[in-house]
């Protein structure tokens, strides 16, 4: 039995307004079932295996209210400008506190893809949503994902038409202004990406804050990759220093489908990100990369789950953490190989670089293999800068602190250098330079 819920999140929000939105019956039913699922689960506690190292009681006891920002538009524009990828994007959807902002978005007319706010589609009984919305996540979510479905105000819908290749990325920008309420604000951004068979697209999601206040972003993204389609997703989390950020990404790839997710967790005082990838058809591939930076007393938790549900599927995963101050980084990587899913190739690596005496890293690889003809490898390291590398740099005349900074930056670059969109890669490199003292003013090679 769960303890009685504190008057915090989500109690202060009140029961979700299932009936007042004019939504289609399927959406109504989905919200209700997810809320019921939450009521059964309750908020996670450190007693739950998946939340052992991440205590969310500070979220559960804060009476968050739905953000209703009335001012700060200028700050939102500044935040958008600093993350403007300009002509590098095919379309840009901007959300303020989880609500679509048509005046800040840019949706050029074309026929290769459809992009727009979810809210209008929730009212329709037909279209692709009843089939896909909430289905990728299915029963795999946790309490926060349940609450996102129950409370989401709006979100992004992107559908790539069959066989179409979108060269430039589709850009989703979620800005928290988090004001206009007497209590800390919460938003529930939601995204559904549907890549029809044989299509290819890149999606960039940025979650940022333009608020000094405490707030919560509880985001869910679902990505459906049909047979032979590819989706490359880059996600940058640069929430404000006092923010809480919880996000869940569920991706499912069909036969010969390819799912790439790269995550950069650079913000928020407490960040928890779950990736749930499912390879549903033969020849499916997924590639999960992540970089998390901790300083001060920040807490970062990266949970990934790769489900090899079909034979002849492969996955590659590299997660890296750089932890300074008294920060705490958690990596938990689960790889599941279903019975009869033979000829699986799965490789997982987690490396943590510890820069201070008080920083802490937990790394838990977890292989659940129920087939016999598979190749699964995992490696996990927690350590300081390699003394031999340090000596090598110093022996060339570079002083010790500069050599340390260079090696730290280089450690991060292994992930940042994989980003294929030049403007985003440059932006991430600049962020790394500003957060890692003395990092060289050079982009990752």
């Amino acid at each position, binding site marked *: 039995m769960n303890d009685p819920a504190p008057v915090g999140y989500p109690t202060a929000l009140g029961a979700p307004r299932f009936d007042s939105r004019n939504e289609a019956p399927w959406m109504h039913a989905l919200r209700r079932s997810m809320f019921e699922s939450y009521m059964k689960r309750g908020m996670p506690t450190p007693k739950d295996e998946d939340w052992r190292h991440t205590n969310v009681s500070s979220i559960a006891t804060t009476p968050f209210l739905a953000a209703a920002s009335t001012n700060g538009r200028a700050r939102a524009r500044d935040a958008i400008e600093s993350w403007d990828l300009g002509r590098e994007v095919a379309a840009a959807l901007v959300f303020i506190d989880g609500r679509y902002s048509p005046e800040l978005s840019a949706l050029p007319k074309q026929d290769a893809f459809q992009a727009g706010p979810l809210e209008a589609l929730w009212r329709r009984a037909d279209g692709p949503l009843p089939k896909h919305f909430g289905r990728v996540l299915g029963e795999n979510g946790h309490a926060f994902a349940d609450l996102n479905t129950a409370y989401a105000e709006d979100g992004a819908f992107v559908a790539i038409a069959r066989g179409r290749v979108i060269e430039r990325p589709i850009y989703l920008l979620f800005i928290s202004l988090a004001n206009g309420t007497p209590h800390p604000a919460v938003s529930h951004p939601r995204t559904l990406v549907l890549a029809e068979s044989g299509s290819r697209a890149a999606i960039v999601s940025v979650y940022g804050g333009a608020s000094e206040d405490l707030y919560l972003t509880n985001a869910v993204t679902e990505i459906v990759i049909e047979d032979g389609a590819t989706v490359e997703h880059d996600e940058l989390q640069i929430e404000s220093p006092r923010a809480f950020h919880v996000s869940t990404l569920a991706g499912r790839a069909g036969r010969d489908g390819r799912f790439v997710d790269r995550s950069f967790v650079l913000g928020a005082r407490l960040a928890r990100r779950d990736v749930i990838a499912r390879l549903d058809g033969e020849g499916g591939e997924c590639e999960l990369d992540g970089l998390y930076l901790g300083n001060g007393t920040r807490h970062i938790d990266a949970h990934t789950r790769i489900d090899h549900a079909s034979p002849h599927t492969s996955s590659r995963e590299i997660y890296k953490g750089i932890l300074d101050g008294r920060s705490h980084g958690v990596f938990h990587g689960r790889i599941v190989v279903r019975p009869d899913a033979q000829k699986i190739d799965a490789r997982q690596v987690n490396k943590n670089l510890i820069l201070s005496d008080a920083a802490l890293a937990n790394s838990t690889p977890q292989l659940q293999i129920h087939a016999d003809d598979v190749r699964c490898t995992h490696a996990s390291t927690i350590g300081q800068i390699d003394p031999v590398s340090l000596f090598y740099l110093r*022996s*060339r*005349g570079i002083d010790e602190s500069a050599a340390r900074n260079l090696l730290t930056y280089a450690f991060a670059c292994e992930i940042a250098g994989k980003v294929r969109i030049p403007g985003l890669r440059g932006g991430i490199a600049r962020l790394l330079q500003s957060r890692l003292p003395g990092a060289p003013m050079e982009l990752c090679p």
Partner: protein
Amino acid sequence: MLNVQDLHVSVGCSEILRGLDLAVNAGEVHAIMGPNGSGKSTLAHVLAGRPGYDVTQGRVTYRDRDLLSLAPEERAREGVFLAFQYPVEVPGVSNVYFLKAALNAIRKHRGEPELDAMDFLALVKEKSGLVEIEEALTRRAVNEGFSGGEKKRNEIFQMAVLDPRLAILDETDSGLDIDALRTVARGVNQLRTAERAMIVVTHYQRLLEYIVPDFVHVLVDGRIALSGGKDLALDLETRGYGWLDPGPNAVAEAP
């Protein structure tokens, strides 16, 4: 230029160098030979300042300064260069960036202006020809994914750019086929000048056919057991190391 006197060095509990003496003048090339475990690489690393080696006795002067009191980066800026036996891969840092940072640190120390990007690239172009290193390689991450031969050529390329006074080559021949060895040796020979001294550490005489030394020293059990001219290397090739007397202080190895 370099004067090593009665040098004793321990790693952990075991004493590796046990009273080594060596004098090297500008323009000279000294070969240090010896069996495995005799202390050749330890000598190379101690001169470059690698942490973890305890000097328990003796002194090393370099251009009238106490070399052992200097940090590794200070030695590099004073002109000491170690070509590593196992060059380190540094993913995420491009070769040119790394070299430019190193060269400018050295130039700053010498009171010379830092090189701008244009001048530096011109220098890279000039020096990369010396060891036949492809320009594309100079833009890749330091040593990452390089073949054994490419790594060794990259060491000599770095040496050419950094222009040291004292170059120490630690088993630069190990793992090289004969063509790669010739290329590396050709690069080294072009860097021989009247101002520059070199210490070439090697297990095999083969390298010394291509880099002909002025002096050959044989290191046995942490001290120089025998010194001679370049012909000594040939002698060692035919006779091996077994006949050399480890000296009165030698301690019998545990079986």
